[in-house]
């Protein structure tokens, strides 16, 4: 089935079996191996990408559902020559050990910061009528869809804190 997806700013024409997940389309058809397949069931978050600016699990979506959409993977967030502030912060805070979950963590963190800036609530939000204060409890709750088997969680929070700034 013919599908055109704009991936990291470039329109990519694909002809796919409808069963192809967005994750497999990115990895196996477009050779973008940054997005990782961990559980393939939406439980680990290693496949997190941004679709039209919002984070989703690429493993739980069919590529054909995304015709005309804009997808940003870790390769589009930044690379060695132009690191995104979140990537730089992960390096500086040593926010990974094996690194397998890291692309998903970074895409998720970038999407999460926009959600918080847009004042979307989370389970950690005590006052639904007030502006979101991105406390550590908020960051932990909002990042709970990304698992790190090496358990670099304290450093991941530190890296996200570096980018988000301190709570006023």
């Amino acid at each position, binding site marked *: *089935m013919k599908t055109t997806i704009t991936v990291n700013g470039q329109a990519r024409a694909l002809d796919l*079996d*409808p*069963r192809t*997940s967005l994750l497999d389309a990115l990895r196996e058809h477009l050779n973008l191996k940054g997005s990782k397949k961990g559980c*393939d*069931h*939406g439980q680990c*978050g290693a496949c*997190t990408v941004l679709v039209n600016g*919002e*984070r*989703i*699990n690429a493993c*739980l*979506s*069919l590529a*054909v*559902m995304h*015709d005309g959409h804009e997808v940003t993977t870790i390769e589009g967030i930044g690379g060695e020559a132009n690191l995104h502030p979140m990537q730089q912060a992960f390096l500086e805070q040593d926010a990974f050990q094996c690194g397998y979950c890291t692309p998903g963590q970074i895409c*998720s963190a970038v*999407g*999460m910061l926009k*959600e918080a800036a*847009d*004042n*979307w*609530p*989370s*389970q950690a*939000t005590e006052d*639904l*009528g007030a502006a979101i204060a991105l406390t550590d409890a908020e960051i*932990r*709750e*909002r*990042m*709970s*869809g*990304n698992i790190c088997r090496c358990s670099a969680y304290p450093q991941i929070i530190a890296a996200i804190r570096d980018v988000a700034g301190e709570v006023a």
Partner: protein
Amino acid sequence: MRPFTYERATDLAAAVKAVAENPGARFLAGGTNLLDLMKLDIEQPTHLVDVNRLPLSAIEDTVEGGLRIGAMVTNSHLAADARVRARYSVLTQSIVSGGSGQLRNKATTGGNLLQRTRCAYFYDTSKPCNKRHPGSGCSALEGLNRNSAIFGASEACIATHPSDMAVALTALDAQVETVTPQGATRTLAVADLHRLPGDTPHIETNLAPGELIAAVILPPAAAGGQVYQKARDRASYAGGLASVAVVGTKVAFGAVAHKPWRAEKAEAALAAGASAVEAAHAELAGARDNGKNGFKIALVARMTVAALDEAKQGRGA
């Protein structure tokens, strides 16, 4: 995953017709539950009708003073809506207690209502399950039933409905607006959408094959506080062991029955002047367990009392 054909619906009536006329067809919304179940060979559709681009993504004020939520509104957008937060905070509280940020960005209002049980035996295709194979038996009855139902279960099935959102919608007296295979619009209460298992646990809702949820309609909220409490094994991103939604003196339970459980006996007790403890016990007197899920009875009683007390103090009002 088994092969299937795919079409992207652009017309509501045509989408309903496409599914109604093809027994192997299913609607595809967010897909976070359906595609997962297809990978596991539990769901086996031969044709998917993608309804994501139908014009069902608006949240509109109703003339009655409530809200009409399009079925394709994502869980995230619904939880973040300023009107929902101000007037229906129990709905926001329930949604943000379910899934992860990534899942809520994809999952839809209609799809959330129609998600399927997380019973371990429904997921284990090597075991009997009356939902997957009617007549094969229920493995949970004498198996790992720690998270099974304590209300309304049958010998055929003790599975629970996993939605948090639906529990809040039940306490809010929400209605579902559907389009029938004949092209008519009908409404039914969210409380009447799902069925108890009886002898046919594979039939989970009162929707006809091909009937599409188009919207959820919220009436003006009842007066009083609004509270959603959820107990689970992890602090975040885990299904509920039990949950309680309170809107004023309206009460609904989650993860304890085959459908969101309206606590009518508790509500009647409260209306008759009973205390929160008495009201909780009035409802829980009808609970039955299968061994490992007996803890839910005391748990739900305590959660009900706590949620009623919080609502009485004005939380979420």
